[in-house]
Every structure is written in C-alpha cells, then in structure tokens.
C-alpha cells in the first residue's frame, strides 16, 4: 500500500511539474503589465485609455493615422471622393473576418461608425455634416455629406479615445450609452473572455485569420503582424511589485512605470527603460467658470503668470528627462502646436503681475476649492503646486482631497463650492487627444455642452468652427493659431507641461512600435 502511495505521489509531482512547462514550450506568451485595469470592454461608452488599448487589440479601423500624421487606409482597400467633396466611396480589403468567422461587411462598418458618432466629439461633427451612409454591397459603402467636411478621413482615423473601431453590426446596434460585453472584433488579437479576470488578467490570442497589410507598421497604420501566440495583460496594482516582477523576468513589458522606480530597473542589464511615446501627455489645470472667482477672466489669466511648467513637470514626472514645458494648447511636437499668445506662461514667473490681475479682478477673498485625488500621483502633485501658487498670489485656497472616483463625480457637480462644488481640478490627457481643435475638448467653450467647468464663450466656438472649414494645411495652421491666441486670453484651462511615463521591457523583447499608444503587434519575444 505504502509503495503504491509513493508511486502515486511521484507521478502526481512529475505531472504537476511538467504541466506548466510543456504548455509554456508549446506557445510564446507575452506578459504585459498595463497602465490600468481593464474593466470596461466598450471603447465607445468610455474614453478610458485602457479600454482604447484593448480596442486596438481586438478591433480594426477603417483608416489610421501614421507617425507623420498622415491618414492611411487600414481596413479600407481603396476609397475615392467625388469632385464636389460630398461623396466618399469606400471599398473594404478582401479577406476581412470577425473573430466569429463572419466576414466584415459594409453594414458592420456603417453601424459601428454611426454608434461612435453618437459619443465622440469629432464623430458628432462628422454626423452633423452627414446626409447618409449607404451600403452599395457587402464590400462597398458610401458616405454622403450635406456640405464638404475636410476632416472626414481624419475623423475615421482618429487615433485616441474614442476611436471608431469596427464591430459586427449586431453589437454596434447597441445603444451608445450602454456598455457592450461582447469583444468580437476583426483585429489582430482575439480576447479569450473565459480567461478574463477583471482586476487581474486579460488574455488575448493571435487571430490566425487576420490578414495584415503589406506596409510597415507606423502608429496604428500599416501591417499588424502578430509575432507571439498569446498576450497576457497582468494588472499589478502595486508599483513596487510590478518593478520586482520585471526584475525577476515574470513580466516582459511594463507599459507605464512611475519615474521614481527608473533607477531601480535601470540597474538590471536585462531590462530596458525607454520613452516609446513620442507625444507623451499634457497636464491640465481646469477652472470652474460657473462661480467666482474663476468666472472672471483676469483671475484665470493670473494663473498663467504664476504657473511654472518646469515645477509641474518635475512634480509629475520626477525628472526633467521625462518631460518638458509645452506652452501650447495643442500637443507639442505635432503640426498645430505653437507658442502663439503664450508669453504669459513662459519665462520667469511674474507673481507681481499675477497679484495685480487678482486685484483687478475684484477678488473678494472667496475660498477657492481645489478638488484632489490622492490616489492619482499626476493629479495630486499638480494640486499641491497649484495650492502653493494660489497662496503666493494672495488667493485663499484649500485642497479637498479624496480618491479619483470622488473627484470625477464631484467635478460634475454644478453647485457652488461651499455646497459640494469646486473651483479647480487637475487631470491630464494623452498627446493625441490635444493635437487639434477638434479633439482638444477642454479648449471648447460651448456652455452646458462643454467639458467640466462649463466655459461659455462664443468667440472660442466661432474660431474653432472656422478651423473645421480650413481647406489647406496653411489655413488649418492659421486657424489653430487663432484658437490658441484667443485661448491664452480666455484661458479655458492652464496647460501645465508635457510629460512621458517611460516603458520598461525585458531585453529579449524587440519590435515595440514607437507610438502614443502601446500597440502589441510587431512585438517579438526571443
């Protein structure tokens, strides 16, 4: 009996030891630590970047922007625009299939774009200009416009939230305000939903039916060639543990690491720490325009003279190497960025001028409430710096701290600060979300329809609208400059600098695409 028991234990131990190894040998798995936990599968109902990144894994797009900001066809094989600029005809590439095996049809594309256009700001502008979408056949469809809309292709190639991903019609017919829970797409990876553990792990496998384009990858355009069999997103909430997992080789890529851990990982010769995001993110100091004192333009202008972007960059990114001042309302390093009108924000800080503007505004010492999220270091560091700046210019300010969930709930409150409202909050946006007046939503000033803070300024809207009608790159640049020049007078928000959170990856990883979004096709693991 004892002998049998010993044999059984030996066999069981061998099987237990061999099982995981044999599975590991059979396939190449990329282990990726994402910036956040994926909890929403619908890239249309939310603008969360983690859901957008998930979207790029499982969905494809009709068009995509390349690294030179040029729109390239992606799912579309060929397209043409009528001479009057009112009709676009699109033909899909052959061989496109959804993960359930169904072919991608014109009806799927139309339903997906229509759903996206109900939520996305640029999509809404396209929808306003649209007369109809029509399927000619399963592979060809047309877009008929009421008036020429020069940004049509740019809208369909929008790289960041919300991205017009293509879904099966049956899913895309869902109400645009209700979450979808079926991740069927036609992208280069398939999500294994049965292995999804929210808060811990998301598993994708290579979509073997995917037909990549022939061109080299450039941002989200070009050939999406998958070079691993399986990708596991492992969400590790604790940064120190994530760093230890990278050091120990338990993870291959860490999407965004906190700057204070760079020295720790840089000591390991098997780990590379690099900035692979060419645009980074932009810090934002947002005002509430509904209540004093920031319903007064001079008070908002005062902050332009007090904010030192160098301090904010160091506060957020820990080191000047991971960021730089960006005196523009449009992401620095992109075609429309400039320093037009930015003088108040540049150079040596002028607190005397700021104090003078505060005085001229008629500020009566009202308490200014900065709502803060201490669980978000990017928000918290900015809040502390703004508090100091406000105190320096004689403003009676205080921080009311909570978590991120509380902040984004409270910022929607339109009551006065003493009744649960607020005066200032901070956040950040990734570079692609601020490249032009169409996507740069904090710059808008359409009152009740505007982003939190609800600025109302007809001139801003007028200048923004003029930009939509620019016909040439030069006209576009001039119109964007006009938007920015006025923005530095009206001050819808204060840009607090441009920063990059570096990516860490093991030295046996290659092929990471330099892009403002972490894209996992083309990535090879030796």
């Amino acid at each position: 009996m004892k002998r049998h028991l010993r044999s059984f234990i030996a066999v069981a131990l061998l099987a237990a030891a061999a099982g995981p190894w044999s599975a590991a040998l059979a396939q190449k798995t990329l282990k990726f630590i994402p910036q956040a936990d994926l909890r929403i599968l619908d890239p249309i109902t939310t603008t969360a970047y983690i859901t957008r990144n998930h979207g790029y894994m499982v969905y494809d797009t009709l068009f995509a922007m390349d690294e030179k900001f040029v729109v390239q066809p992606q799912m579309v094989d060929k397209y043409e625009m009528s001479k009057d600029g009112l009709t676009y005809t699109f033909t899909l590439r052959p061989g496109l299939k959804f993960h359930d095996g169904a072919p991608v049809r014109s009806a799927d594309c139309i339903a997906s774009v229509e759903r996206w256009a109900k939520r996305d700001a640029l999509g809404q502008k396209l929808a306003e200009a649209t007369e109809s979408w029509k399927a000619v056949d399963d592979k060809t469809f047309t877009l008929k416009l009421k008036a020429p809309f020069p940004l049509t292709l740019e809208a369909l190639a929008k790289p960041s939230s919300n991205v017009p991903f293509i879904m099966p019609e049956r899913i895309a017919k869902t109400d645009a305000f209700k979450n979808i829970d079926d991740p069927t797409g036609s992208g280069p990876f398939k999500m294994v939903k049965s292995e999804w553990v929210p808060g811990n792990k998301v598993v994708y496998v290579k979509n073997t039916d995917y037909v990549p384009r022939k061109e080299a990858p450039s941002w989200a355009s070009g050939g999406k060639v998958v070079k691993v069999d399986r990708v596991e997103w492992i969400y590790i909430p604790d940064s120190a543990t994530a760093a230890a997992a990278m050091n120990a080789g338990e993870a291959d890529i860490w999407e965004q690491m906190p700057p204070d851990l760079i020295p720790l990982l840089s000591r390991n010769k098997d780990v590379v720490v690099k900035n692979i995001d060419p645009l980074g993110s932009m810090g934002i100091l947002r005002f509430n325009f509904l209540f004093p004192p920031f319903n007064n333009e001079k008070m908002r202008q005062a902050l332009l003279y007090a904010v030192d972007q160098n301090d904010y960059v160091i506060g957020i990114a820990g080191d000047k190497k991971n960021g730089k001042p960006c005196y523009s309302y449009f992401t620095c390093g992109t075609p429309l960025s400039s320093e037009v009108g930015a003088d108040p924000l540049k150079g040596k800080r002028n607190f005397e001028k700021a104090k003078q503007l505060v005085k001229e505004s008629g500020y009566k010492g009202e308490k200014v409430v900065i709502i803060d999220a201490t669980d978000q270091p990017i928000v918290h560091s900015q809040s502390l710096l703004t508090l100091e700046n406000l105190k320096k210019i004689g403003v009676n300010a205080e921080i009311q701290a909570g978590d991120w969930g509380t902040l984004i709930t409270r910022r929607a409150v339109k009551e006065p600060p003493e009744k649960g409202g607020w005066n200032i909050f901070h956040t950040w946006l990734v570079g692609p979300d601020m490249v032009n007046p169409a996507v740069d939503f904090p710059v808008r000033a359409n009152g009740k329809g505007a982003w939190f803070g609800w600025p109302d300024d007809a001139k801003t809207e007028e200048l923004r609208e003029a930009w939509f009608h620019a016909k040439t790159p030069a006209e576009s640049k001039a119109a964007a400059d006009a938007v920015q020049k006025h923005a530095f007078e009206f001050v819808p928000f204060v840009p607090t600098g441009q920063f990059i959170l570096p990516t860490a990856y093991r030295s046996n990883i290659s092929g990471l695409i330099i892009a403002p979004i972490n894209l996992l096709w083309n990535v090879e693991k030796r």
Partner: protein
Amino acid sequence: MAVVAFVVFLLLYLTPGDPAAILAGDAATSQDIAKIREALGLNEPFHVRFGEWVWRLLHGDLGISIFTRLPVTALIGQRIGPTFSLTVCTLVFSVLVAVPLGVIAAARAGRWIDRAVMGFSVAGFSLPVFVLAYILIYLFSIELEWLPVQGYRPMSEGVWEWARHLVLPTLALGTVYIALIARMTRAAMLDVLAQDYVRTAQAKGLAPNAVLIGHALKNAAVPIVTVIGIGIGLLIGGAIVTETVFALPGVGRLTVDAILRRDYPVIQGVVLMFSAAYVLVNLAVDLSYMFFDPRVRY
C-alpha cells in the same frame, strides 16, 4: 444578514461617488454622464433600487457588475480560490507555528525562550504586512530567486505551482496572526497551568508533556479557539493588503477595486459574502466549544 444587507445598501447610497462618471471616462461631459446614469437606472429612488436588489437576491441573483457586465457571482467565483487558499494556508500555518510557540513559552515562562517568543510576538504585531511582504519579495524572489514575486496559480495547474505562489503571501500574512495566537496561547496556558488539577496531575507523576498537552492545552483550548475565530476577521482585512502587494486575484482586491470605482452590485455581493463567512466561522467556533469543553451545551 438582512441587517447587513440593508446597512450596506444604505451606506453605498449615501457615499459620494458616481459609477456613471467613472464609467464614462475623463473626456465625458455632464450630459453623457446623465444619459449613462439613466441607462444604468441610477436615478431611481432608494426604495426602488433596494427593492429590486432584494428581489433579485431572494432569487439567488447578486446582480451584474456595472463595469465589466459580468455577474457578481461569477466575479466572486473567479476570486474565491486565491482568497480561500491564502486564508486556509495562513490559518493552518499560523496555528501549527503559534500554538506550539505559545505552549513552549508558557511552559518555560520567564526563561529566554519565553522572552524570545514574546519578542517575536511584539515584532509580528508591529511590522506592517506590506513592509514584511516587500522584505520577503526582495530576499526570496529578487536575491535568491527561489519564489515568484507575484501572481496565483490554481491547483489545477499543479500543486507545486500553487504552493510556490502562496509561500510568501502566507508568510507575510501569517506573521501577525502567529503573534496574536502565540500570545493568547501563552496567556491561556499560564492560567491553566496554575490550576489545582494540573498540580494534581503533576503530583500523580504524569509525564510533563502529557500534563502540558493532555490536560493544560485541552483546557486552554476554548480561549485559543475563540481568538483564532476572531482573528479570521483580521485575516480577511490583512488579505486585502497581501493580495494587493502580491497581485493575487482574490476577493480582497475585488472589494477594494469595486469600492474605488463605486461598482455597487459587486460591493454589496462581497460584503454579504464576507458577513456570511464571518457568521459561519463564529458558528463553527461556538460549536467547537462543545468538543473542547464537554460542560458546554447549547
């Protein structure tokens, strides 16, 4: 349980935070959020929402997560394995280490071994779980490369893998629990060892170990078991930190994540589950008194 269900629902209703705002993302407008609130039914009055929740609960349905659109029972089912494994391993490990330590300390009261055990006990209480966890990761995962830094493997992937991933979390979480049980065991044993019947047993010439284990420990068991039962609450609290540091996908982390994002159905589900577990543990502890002390009758 009914009281717990009502209080939890009420607290969540009164707590600031809006899942619709979190769901919509940073770029959403107030109008977007209002439409999502409507679609989620969050504008309904308290009594309607509570009534619907209770009705579903009575049918065994804990609802669906606002964010993931997965059933709460499925989410808890995914997470119960790691938490159960961690809790049971910690409990077994702690009892196996702490009770002998407490007995030895009591038997050698005032000597160096007693002082060492009590010193360890104080250190165990004083050292936060996360600090100990980082030290263990540094020593055993980074320097010695013996054990994994993070993660969990279910037993179905192999007993060895399962055990390897639980060693460090168990050590980190178990230390404070060992400290608690060892201290209580020592105190209970000292009390019993001073009783007349122990002296009688010793006078009758029974072997010291037989007196210690057969007479003293058995009679000291009731307070020790009570502390172990109470400590399970401590263990659940500690598991949240341990699961976060070691990236274990347990119910503790599910709870914290749900609270941070105001995922009401998940919070209600896990709190109900924890309270049910606590009630069951206390029931088991109460019933165990009859085994350790035949005078106890219910």
